[in-house]
């Protein structure tokens, strides 16, 4: 049987010829390393053209001024970066006269007294990231603990928890725009009475808008956090709980002494992931409030890249740099644990 088949395939192979067969045979005869690199070529091409090239080019552009002007671009070295931090280029940002959290006029930016757009954007991005990731972690942990239990209706609760994560950003933004828009939203009145939000023009008030954007983000991305933490919870050895129960540990002690320490690495990595992701915030702000009201780093790039390409590139590269440093931490952890 087997010899017959071998003879058969050999026969077929000898009969077939042409370019396809030649290519197949060439592929088969490649060494493992060459074969591996060959199969990775499409990935290299796509990521090289759409990620690596733009990144390098962005860095190059960030060292020029007048990229879009009629004259030739002028090389200025790191001047764009310096100007960005000193605030010398603030007048170049669209809408900056409309929104400069000036100490004298701004009632709503108690936590920063910056007068520059870039520094505001940096502060806004960091505040948003820290606050949203903190709440997402705490609430996500709670959701993960619930999903870790066996109970009737678990599937329903799980779907309900995942759904916000899956809905399009533009619809999420629209929901919260409608929920807090002064002429439709019922929530604005409640929260304004407590003093959290500005009662009028809520979505044009920097602090109110930032709070709304943060709430919207927590609503959507907590699910992601919950799923990552849930994976950590489910990898905990269940027999440990048996032992603890026999030893007379209370539920709280079991949580504190078994669950928490064993899940902490998963939580840490989830927090890093979310931090990296939260630092990129743009769309939600663009839909719900406006980039001129709540400037984030990505917002600034989008707002300026059609007028001041060099400056926009500098902001983009700084944003990438900050995120790159955080990403290095994640990658270092992965590398230490081995893939």
């Amino acid at each position: 049987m087997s010899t017959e088949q071998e003879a058969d395939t050999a026969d077929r192979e000898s009969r077939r010829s042409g370019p396809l067969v030649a290519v197949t045979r060439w592929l088969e005869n490649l060494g493992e390393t060459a074969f591996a690199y060959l199969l990775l070529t499409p990935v290299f091409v796509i990521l090289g053209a759409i990620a690596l090239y733009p990144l390098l080019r962005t860095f190059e552009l960030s060292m020029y001024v007048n990229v879009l002007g009629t004259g030739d671009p002028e090389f200025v070295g790191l001047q764009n970066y310096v100007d960005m931090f000193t605030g010398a280029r603030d007048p170049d940002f669209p809408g900056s006269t409309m929104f400069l959290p000036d100490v004298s006029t701004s009632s709503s930016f108690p936590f920063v007294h910056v007068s520059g757009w870039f520094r505001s954007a940096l502060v806004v991005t960091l505040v948003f990231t820290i606050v949203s990731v903190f709440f997402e972690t705490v609430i996500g942990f709670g959701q993960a603990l619930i999903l870790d239990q066996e109970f009737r209706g678990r599937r329903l609760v799980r779907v309900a928890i995942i759904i916000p994560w899956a809905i399009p950003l533009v619809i999420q933004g629209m929901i919260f725009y409608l929920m807090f828009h002064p002429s439709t939203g019922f929530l604005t009145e409640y929260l304004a009475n407590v003093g959290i939000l500005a009662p009028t023009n809520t979505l044009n008030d920097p602090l109110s808008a930032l709070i709304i954007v943060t709430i919207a983000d927590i609503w959507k991305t907590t699910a992601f956090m919950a799923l990552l933490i849930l994976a950590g919870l489910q990898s905990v050895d269940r027999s440990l709980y048996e032992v603890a129960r026999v030893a007379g540990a209370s539920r709280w002690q079991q949580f504190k002494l078994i669950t928490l320490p064993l899940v902490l690495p998963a939580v840490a990595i989830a927090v890093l992931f979310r931090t990296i992701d939260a630092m990129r915030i743009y769309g939600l702000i663009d839909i719900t409030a406006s980039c001129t009201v709540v400037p984030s780093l990505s917002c600034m790039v989008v707002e300026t890249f059609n007028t001041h390409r060099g400056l926009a590139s500098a902001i983009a590269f700084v944003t990438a740099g900050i995120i790159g440093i955080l990403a290095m931490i994640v990658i270092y952890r992965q590398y230490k644990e081995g893939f």
Partner: protein
Amino acid sequence: MATTTEQRSDSEDAEDGVIAQWTKGVIGDDEKRARLYRALFYVACGFFLVTTLFPFYWLLVLALTPNSQILTGDWSLPVIGIEFPHPQGFNPQAFVEVFQQIPFHLYVFNSFVLATVTTIIVLLVASLAGYVFGRLDFPGKGPLMLGVLMVSYFPPAAFLIPLFDAFLGNAIVVPFLGIELFEPPRLVNTPGSMIMPFSALFLPLAIFILTTFYAQIPDGLEDAARVEGTTRLGALFRVIMPLSAPGVATAAVLTFIAVYNEYFFSSIMALENVPENWSPLVGGILSYQDQYTTDFNLMAAASIVGVIPILILVIVAQERIVSGLTAGGLKE
């Protein structure tokens, strides 16, 4: 649920001594304590159900309420008088108007096409990469995987400017050398200007999901296929991929959702917000915010229509999503 409210109202009404007694009772009595835990558990469940689902209820209320009623901003319930959003009037007409004002279905269709094409490209490329990373051993594997991972972390804003230039048809310049390579075709207002960045953006996650799944297929099965005379690539597409069908499905679902939901490139690369120029769902929804700013009921109705495909996908594929996010997110 019922038990907590009972216990709570009991304890609130009673004097200190009774509370102390009750607390002591709960602490001491195992059965009571278990009941308390259970009650708290269901309260928490209910809380999360309400907070995650309420915004959808809010959309429905807005969509069904005639716009003139919405603008009065009065949500007080009849009889009780508490402010709580509820449909005032019944106006399903809004769901028809969504399609009459703009060709909303075309925007949704564009999103579908973009998501499907991107998913196919990503699955093909990521399958090859997942096979290499999951099943082959070769020098440079670790650093390469880290490189792929690194890309997924960068903000889209860092890629935007040169990509935008290239898609406008400006020459590609070798960075730092000033050598102009070639002038690419003008891709703005075509699907290419979105599919390309989407593919790069969502490729890493798919690669890691597929790497995990492909690595789990026993070597023996591949060897058997190879002995039978199948080529290495044949073994990937005829043995390994079918056997990792759940992994492939997971990567497909997550990529599809990610593209359908994408905002950054979707909003920037479609220069003109018309469906003929491949403006996706984002454009459709935002055109209600831009042009007809006061038609709140239409904004809500459009959002509901736009979210339905995703809702169905999540309900059908929830297992896939959970396993994919955890496998791809935590890297096993």
